[in-house]
């Protein structure tokens, strides 16, 4: 297997050919913030938090879809990048109705954690306060669209891991929203297998198990990546 070496934040790092900068960085212990990335499913490159500077390239590159290359010089922590990441988070907080104090995922939310990590202490943009529904028609789970950041991890998980493709996105721009099947209530979906993988994949409290109250909805997001790995390697026990 071909191996390339590159420099990330001044640190020499090795990577397998074809591996992303994000994966190479993670392996070397360099954390690049992400929201739409999830181990085990394809990349969307949609949240733009993992943007990095690559020497010799004019535009910022999303680390999740940039292949590591020999001699590449990557910087993940510049003033501009830190500021841009903060602004992107502020845009997300202003877009939905993210109220941690009453959220099932409080304390177990990737959006909340990213905001704390990146030092997002206020939102400089006006809140859009959209009117969004909550769908509790499913017997076990529920979706609160107010907390959805449209990362599409659930869409990709349902399509690629479970193979059901119950979830997709309808509408466009800031009116984009998740739909089950052709837009019917989740509980009436003909394709949903009630496997709950989407719930585990969700970075926020948008998808949750019914009956959980504030801060009770913990998620095991690593399980999905492990599942994909186990299927591929045909190894189910450690």
């Amino acid at each position, binding site marked *: 297997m071909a191996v390339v070496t590159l420099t990330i934040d001044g640190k020499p790092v090795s990577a397998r050919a074809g591996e992303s900068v994000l994966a190479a960085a993670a392996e070397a212990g360099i954390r690049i913030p992400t929201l739409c990335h999830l181990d085990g499913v394809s990349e969307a490159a949609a949240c733009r938090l993992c943007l990095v500077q690559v020497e010799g390239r004019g535009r910022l590159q999303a680390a999740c879809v940039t292949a590591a290359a020999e001699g590449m010089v990557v910087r993940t922590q510049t003033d501009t990048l830190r500021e841009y990441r903060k602004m992107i988070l502020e845009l997300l907080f202003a877009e939905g109705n993210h109220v941690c104090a009453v959220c099932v995922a409080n304390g177990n939310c990737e959006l909340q954690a990213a905001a704390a990590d990146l030092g997002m202490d206020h939102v400089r943009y006006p809140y859009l306060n959209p009117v969004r529904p909550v769908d509790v028609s499913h017997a076990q789970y529920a979706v609160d669209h107010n907390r959805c*950041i449209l990362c599409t991890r659930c869409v990709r998980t349902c399509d690629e891991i479970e193979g059901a493709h119950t979830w997709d996105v309808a509408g466009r721009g800031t009116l984009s929203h998740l739909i089950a099947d052709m837009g019917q209530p989740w509980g009436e979906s003909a394709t949903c297998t009630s496997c709950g993988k989407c719930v585990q994949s969700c970075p926020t409290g948008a998808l949750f198990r019914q009956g959980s109250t504030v801060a009770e909805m913990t998620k095991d997001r690593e399980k999905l990546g492990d599942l994909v790995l186990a299927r591929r390697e045909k190894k189910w026990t450690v």
Partner: protein
Amino acid sequence: MDHDELLRIADAERAKAKPNEIRCCTSSGCRASGSADVLKQLKASVAANGLNDTLTAVGVGCPGLCSAGPVVMSHPDGGMFGKVTAEQAKGIVAALSGGATDAQRIDPNQPFFRKQFRVVRATAGQIDPERIESYIAVGGYEGLYQALQKRPDEIVTDVTASGLRGRGGAGYPTGLKWATVEKMPPGQKYVICNGDEGDPGAFMDRSVMEDAPHQVLEGMAIAAYAVGANQGFIYVRAEYPLAIERLQAAITQATKAGLLGANIFQTPFEFKVEIRIGAGAFVCGEETALIASVQGLRGTPRPRPPYPAESGLWDRPTLINNVETFATIPAISRNGAAWFAAIGTDRSKGTKIFSLTGKVKNAGLVEVPMGTTLRAVVEELGGGTADGKAVKAVQTGGPSGGCIPASLLDTPIDYESLGKIGSIMGSGGMIVMDDTDRMPEVARFFMEFCADESCGKCVPCRVGTVQLHGLLTKLVERKATRHDLDTLVELCQLVRDTSLCGLGQSAPNPVLSTIRYFAAEYEALLQPEEFARPPRASVIPLSVV
């Protein structure tokens, strides 16, 4: 179909032509002002006057001067009439044999026509776009025949040597794109024609598809032969029903004539074309979103690389070019790369079509050599503003472009020069503005368009454009402070630098270019800080318990 048959069709069509023709524009612009009725009356008058042996009334493509529509022309004497009504049709026919007409005459020698250099629109206004014979009679499909006499890589070399650059906006070298697809290993490859023209104020591609559908097909076929594809798709927006109708008719005619399908010109080359109709999303003009849409998926862009040339439609190597780019190819094939490369400037070769709109006297389509100055297009061809006011600015490139102030009108139109002054060539929309136009409102209009058309996939474009629109609204309503203006600029930079595709990356251009050249208009709208915001000291620091 072989070459002799092509020549026979051309001869037969020419022999059939009557000594005189009366031509009526039947493209969308004139059609909207009633040209279908005018043509009907012209035909009736010709028959009623017993002139059928010497005169025919035919529908033709757009002669360009849309603001004077419906336009009627007489051939070969070169007479031209504008804003023709159905009632005036009889008089126009009578005028050809010395009678009188009250129809408004247009000077065919005015700069609007005289100063154009038509390559892509060479036949527009002269041939019937609905009949393949009409196109063949003026040399149509000769370029395809000549291309098929060469090796594919020779054609790629020709296109590279011609210096042609993509007419969709970005100006990527066409030859380089073709070479990339051509060099991919043999196997299933595709050619896609991007007819999803969506910029407000742009209608060049619509006219090319309506006026010369066969020219687009011929260009695509040459491209397919060059890169080794056997299947093509034309992606047209549903808002262009006439273009769809004429393209469909052209595909049927060309297939029947053996110019599409198997064994074209008795060579092993095979090429089929299908139309795909867009569903109203501007973002589908972005090539990866367009490809997703052709595949029946949600039209959202994906990160590149891989580029479509390597992995496009159904993960196959795909050549995707704009309508105008393909329509330029037959002329290059017929006349040679050197002929084309001699037109235009050093780095921008050939001609470009612009749709001249807004506060301009002669609104319509103009095709000029690259390197022509904006002033020549707006003031000479366009005739300045309709009511004689001074031109304030020219917007090029639509929602991805910028506003160029009157002081920079002597800038030559080429990819580099426009880029240097903060705008882009774009697909060719050119909106003329006078001093009644307020730049912050223009910027707000384009931002509203981008917020509406954002697909919603990436955060900076989805939410950033909405926040930008909010800030511009606040500004226009005179509620914004200097702090808001700073936020506006910094958010513009974020959206430009971090968005996933070209839509978001270029959405701030109208704002940034108007702030650059018309800063005073923004300043004038600002409110003093103290009246607009509570003092900062009132924020109570929170402490974590």
